[in-house]
């Protein structure tokens, strides 16, 4: 359990019935961060859609990117909105922008001391977290300060 930033019991992410995000979640299980990129105009796109918002080409390509970015915003959560978190406060959430992928943004937890001072613009590196015993099993991506 101590391998996880937040305790078990939160909802497990699964693809929508139409499967649009399935490559993203499968990628995290394999420690690969995949973001859509249009084959025609090279525009990055996240969250996923069936079409490129820039040129209307269908089926943007899932493209591997390095999990490195900068903190775009953050929050420290003190009140639990889920019973699983009641004994695990506070915790830190960061919104990270990925300069190598068109500045798309991803949410994750910031590893380390939850009381730490957080500054917008700080470089961070992704850390995969695998919930193999969960049913269904899933993987997520957290962040630590780049050193």
């Amino acid at each position, binding site marked *: 359990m101590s391998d996880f930033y*937040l305790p078990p019991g*939160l*909802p*497990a*992410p*699964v*693809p*929508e*019935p139409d499967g649009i*995000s399935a490559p993203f*979640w499968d990628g995290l299980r394999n420690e690969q961060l995949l973001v859509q990129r249009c084959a025609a105009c090279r525009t990055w796109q*996240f*969250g996923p859609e069936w079409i490129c*918002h820039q040129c209307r080409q269908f089926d943007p390509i899932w493209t591997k990117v390095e999990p490195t970015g900068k903190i*775009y*915003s*953050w*929050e*420290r*959560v*003190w*009140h639990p*909105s*889920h019973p699983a*978190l009641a004994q695990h406060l*506070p*915790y830190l*959430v960061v*919104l990270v922008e990925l300069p190598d992928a068109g500045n*798309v*943004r*991803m*949410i*994750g*937890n910031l590893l380390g001391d939850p009381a730490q001072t957080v500054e*917008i613009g700080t470089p961070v590196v992704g850390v995969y977290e695998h919930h193999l015993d969960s049913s*269904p099993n*899933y993987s*997520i991506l*957290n962040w630590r300060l780049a050193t």
Partner: protein
Amino acid sequence: MSEERTFRGRVAVVGLGESEYFRFGRSPHPEFKLVLQAVLAACSDAGIDPTNIDGFASFGEDRNDAVRLATALGVKRMRSTTMQWGGGGGGCAAAVANGAAAINSGLAQCVVVYRGLAQGQFGRFGQAAPKTTVSGDMAYQMPYGVLAPPQKFALRVQRFMHEHNVGREALRAIALASNRHAQANPRAVMHGKPLTDDAYDASRWIVEPFRLFDCCMENDGAGAIILVSAEKARDFARPPVYVLGAASGAEWRAGASPHNAPLYGSANYHSVAKDLYDMAHVLPVDVGSVQAYENFTGGVAMSLCEHGFFPPEDANDFLTLENLSAPSGALPLNTSGGNLGECYLQGFELVIEAARQVRGESTSQATNKDVALVIGGPMVSPASSLLLGSEEAL
């Protein structure tokens, strides 16, 4: 030459009504019964027979089906039914716009716009609904503890405060203004519970940068208004409150999930506000009072900036309790107590209060009653806002 896109002055509010307002779980009545009470109160205020209502309008996620309502009330002939897309309170002003558009276009003659919300009966917004899996937008958020509106919107407000150096005192002034006005309003859930600077500062964090009193309440209640054409409105007992302008919508890619809206530290009102003022033939300086949706105080600061009352760099100077207080502050704000003090009806209580301001019947009346602004839920899509005005404002 293009024709002006407008229904300015063609539709009026002639009836206002609400149920009793309760802390969540305290209502002795189910949500649908609260809606019936609110609609009947609005009909009584207007002096109309409820069976003559022929149009219905509400907004995202209202559970109180218009057909059930028409059937229950014995409505003789149902015509227009409109539901604004989008969740949360982004549509509280658009619901009025859609009702007004139905009248202006001839689809209906007498429209009730309403909202019922009993969080005691159906679950609190501050808690995630119990489930074991999640997909779509929330799948990118819930596994990280971003589960409910406080955690979703704190990230946006934090970015806004960072970009413009907005301080916590500005948020505090918004919370204190709503509470001050709630003390004058016997309907308000927070009536008799005054908030001080010290109590605000000492209140617990919900999620930084929001303390407890930055967050809207969780309530049980319902509200309704009656709309008719401006021609008919002059025959009613109450002074007509005209729809001067309305607008709704969203910025480019505002719905890019998760948290990928290009204008992120924003309430999503830049282009909506322009459309609104253009239709109403009003400038920010003409506005006598503002009812701005407080999901969280930070959202109000954004909304006021984007409606042109001050640039974001001046937020700390403008947002003071003195400026935001009726009767004679620079911009009396949330004069019934709003979502923080009166009752959280996803902003519909703000619509009712704006109409009361134009009638001159608010419990915290602004000096200028003639133009009243309602700004719906900030940071959501679509967003919407509404300008109401008196005969003198036409």
